[in-house]
């Protein structure tokens, strides 16, 4: 008998005539099996898992049909109290952001013990021993100290290990993992994936793994379910889905995954240097008014050069200093020392006022498309803000905005609408149009496609390439995603702890890395052995 069997599950918005968000979803998981549920945002993969856990937001969503059987028992028939008893003992869940899932004012050891106290009648000593044991199993160092730590004292990876310990301490039959590694760096992600795999083997847990990342799927799945818009599109063993997908949607999803094999750099077409960074240093903290605060050396002697019409990528994990460099270039923060030349003009030492004439030469596209547009301004007002600041008459700026919106593939009617009426991908297009309205020489894209679904990501990257072809704009592209970097950058700089450890043409750096850290990053990239767009293993 399967551990989990979902039959024809239907979930709708809890309102009269509310739309269905899950339209007859079925799924089974056997003991000891890892099943990946993949899909883009809005596909209903998280709703499926929340329905299983009985955690659908009350008053917003409700189950309207179907059955959810855990070891043959229909969870939808259980009372709230029975369901609560069921969670943790027979099924448990880990989430994307371990910081918000943990209580910030309780020591992590006590939080794990709480699970034991709620569901078992163990003595103190037994419980203590059990907690120590599970912390050891999830591979945390210095366990006694860990138990006494608060969540904020741990790293993201450590927190996720604590979450896993908490989920598995009562040896549930089913573990639901909802994007558990999405917020983590690749090297940490690799360790967590291995941990889940190892623990599963030891305990025979059935794992429902929800992710949007095909690379992760290739690493961990036994079987795969593909969802789209509330429906199950396709299911099959991992290899079958990856190498011979039957449905067009699955094929499209796989084709959108950028290949890790770097593309060849484009020939240098223009000589003029758009951006030159020399010996850039940035130190955060330091002299307070009455107190000395701890300092962080976020960028150490960074030197980079970018020619017109080309794309330079800065890759690295969180805390590597890649965003610091981008923000220094944009002069959103002031560099501690070093030079930044944009189109030959030194801008690192200029005052706010002195900088004004050069601002329009450099523009930025931000990571979060939901926060980078003022929700109270229409699209047109946002796009014309820059040109109007530089003295363009309103009417002319509006005409230009219409032109730009068309260029980025939005209908003319979009101009009068507000940001909340657009999807993430469309908003990012708007942000690009806003940046282009200034006719900049340099575009800084800070994780500009990281928040987007792969298919949308591919479209936005395509748009950037097209614009670059046409306008010979230089792009400084900050990303943590080596796949994206491999496909769109001519040169790449790898950063770690504020330093550039490797810098050169993409084909060389990502194709034949010289530095150990670059090699480690590449080795940690999930699904590196599989060439997704071509449905076959990477040719060695």
């Amino acid at each position, binding site marked *: 008998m399967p551990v989990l069997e979902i039959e024809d599950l239907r979930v709708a918005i809890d309102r009269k005539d509310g739309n269905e968000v899950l339209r007859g979803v079925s799924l089974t998981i056997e003991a000891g099996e890892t099943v990946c549920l993949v899909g883009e945002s809005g596909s209903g993969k998280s709703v499926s898992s929340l329905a299983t856990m009985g955690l659908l937001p*009350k008053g917003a969503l409700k189950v309207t049909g179907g059955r959810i059987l855990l070891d043959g028992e229909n969870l939808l028939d259980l009372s709230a109290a029975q369901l609560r008893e069921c969670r943790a003992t027979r099924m448990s869940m880990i989430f994307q952001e371990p910081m918000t899932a943990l209580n910030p004012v309780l020591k992590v050891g006590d939080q794990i013990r709480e699970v034991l106290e709620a569901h078992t009648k163990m003595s103190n000593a037994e419980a203590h021993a059990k907690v120590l044991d599970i912390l050891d199993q999830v591979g945390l160092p210095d366990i006694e100290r860990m138990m006494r730590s608060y969540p904020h004292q741990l790293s993201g990876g450590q927190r996720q290990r604590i979450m896993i310990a908490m989920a598995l301490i009562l040896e549930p039959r089913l573990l639901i993992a909802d994007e558990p590694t999405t917020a983590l760096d690749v090297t940490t992600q690799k360790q967590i994936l291995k941990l889940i795999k190892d623990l599963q083997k030891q305990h025979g847990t059935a794992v429902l793994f929800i992710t949007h990342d095909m690379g992760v799927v290739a690493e961990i799945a036994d079987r795969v379910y593909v969802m789209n818009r509330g429906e199950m599109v396709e299911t099959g063993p991992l290899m079958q889905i990856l190498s011979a997908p039957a449905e067009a949607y699955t094929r499209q999803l796989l084709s959108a995954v950028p290949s890790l094999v770097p593309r060849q750099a484009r020939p240098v077409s223009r000589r003029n240097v758009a951006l030159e960074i020399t010996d850039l240093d940035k130190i955060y903290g330091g002299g307070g008014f009455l107190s000395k605060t701890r300092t962080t050396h976020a960028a150490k002697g960074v030197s980079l050069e970018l020619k017109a019409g080309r794309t330079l990528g800065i890759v690295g994990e969180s805390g590597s200093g890649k965003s610091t460099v981008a923000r220094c270039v944009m002069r959103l923060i002031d560099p501690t020392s070093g030079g930044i030349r944009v189109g030959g003009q030194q801008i690192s030492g200029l005052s706010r006022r002195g900088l004004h004439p050069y601002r329009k030469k450099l523009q930025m596209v931000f*990571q979060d498309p939901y926060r980078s547009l003022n929700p109270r301004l229409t699209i047109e007002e946002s796009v014309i803000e820059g040109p109007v600041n530089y003295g363009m008459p309103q009417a002319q700026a509006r005409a230009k905005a219409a032109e730009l919106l068309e260029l980025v593939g939005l209908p003319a009617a979009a101009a009068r609408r507000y940001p909340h009426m657009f999807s993430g991908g469309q908003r990012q297009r708007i942000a690009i149009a*806003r940046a282009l309205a200034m006719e900049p020489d340099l575009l800084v894209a800070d994780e500009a496609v990281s928040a987007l679904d792969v298919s949308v990501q591919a479209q936005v990257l395509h748009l950037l390439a097209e614009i670059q072809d046409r306008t010979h704009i230089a792009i400084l592209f900050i990303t943590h995603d080596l796949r994206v970097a491999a496909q769109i950058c001519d040169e790449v700089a790898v950063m770690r702890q504020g330093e550039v450890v490797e810098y050169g043409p993409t084909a060389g750096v990502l194709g034949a890395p010289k530095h150990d850290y670059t090699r480690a990053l590449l080795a940690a990239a999930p699904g590196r052995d599989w060439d997704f767009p071509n449905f076959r293993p990477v040719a060695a």
Partner: protein
Amino acid sequence: MAENLLRGAFPLSTRALAERVGIAPMIAAAVLLLILLAAIFAPLIAPHDPIHQNPVMRLKPPSAEFWLGTDAYGRDLFSRVLYGARVSLIIGIGVTVLAVTLGLAIGLVSGFFRSADAVVMRIMDGLMAMPSVLLAIAIVSLMGASIWTVMAAITIPEIPRVVRLVRSIVLSAREEPYVEAAMSLGTSMPRILWRHLMPNTFAPLTVQATYVCASAILTEAILSFLGAGVSTETPTWGNIMAESRVYFRLMPSLILWPGLALSLCILSINLLGDAARDVLDPRMGKRED
């Protein structure tokens, strides 16, 4: 009947609004409207001159001529309470406008410019450390009692609360990427403040304004009661209560009526403020479960 009348008067479905916020705020709004109309049309409604003394008629119980009776000087209580609403509302609205405008300006500057922040906030801390009624008494005794000095005296202690609210909103809003985007588009600082930061404060300020208004009306009544407010000739709810307190055992209605008017007014404003918060910020509103 009343509902039908209301529905005709407002294009917006009153039932939908009532469903969203409950019936209490609707009643509160009606009560406030009534008080406002009474204050505006007091000269037309009032059956007697509120300050005309008539020693023959002192301390009379309610009658057809004196609806709520008369006070120790033979003045009509109903007329006095009506006129009292004028002072209370002028003070309430005036203080709110002043405190919100000044607080908004100071808060915006303090939240956006790090250099100004430390100094401004220490001044605000200092103001907040003083009991507001005591501060108001000091100001009124320095500048002399009139409706304008009372207004100023009540406004000053209210400003820091508005400043702190605005500052905290600006501090979090200035980290938003759209503000950074505006900086990189070359938008000037005053314009960023005006266009991108200030609108974020409107919803919370609306809620805060109602509390400032209620608190101002109450403080004015306290000042009048203590004899440190508007001059004793002017009928205010606080003044009426202060003059009547020696006759409380003889004629409790002299204190009850102005007291009731004051309580109803403040309760209504607070209820409206809560409703505004529910509508403007659903996260802080009532929980379903």
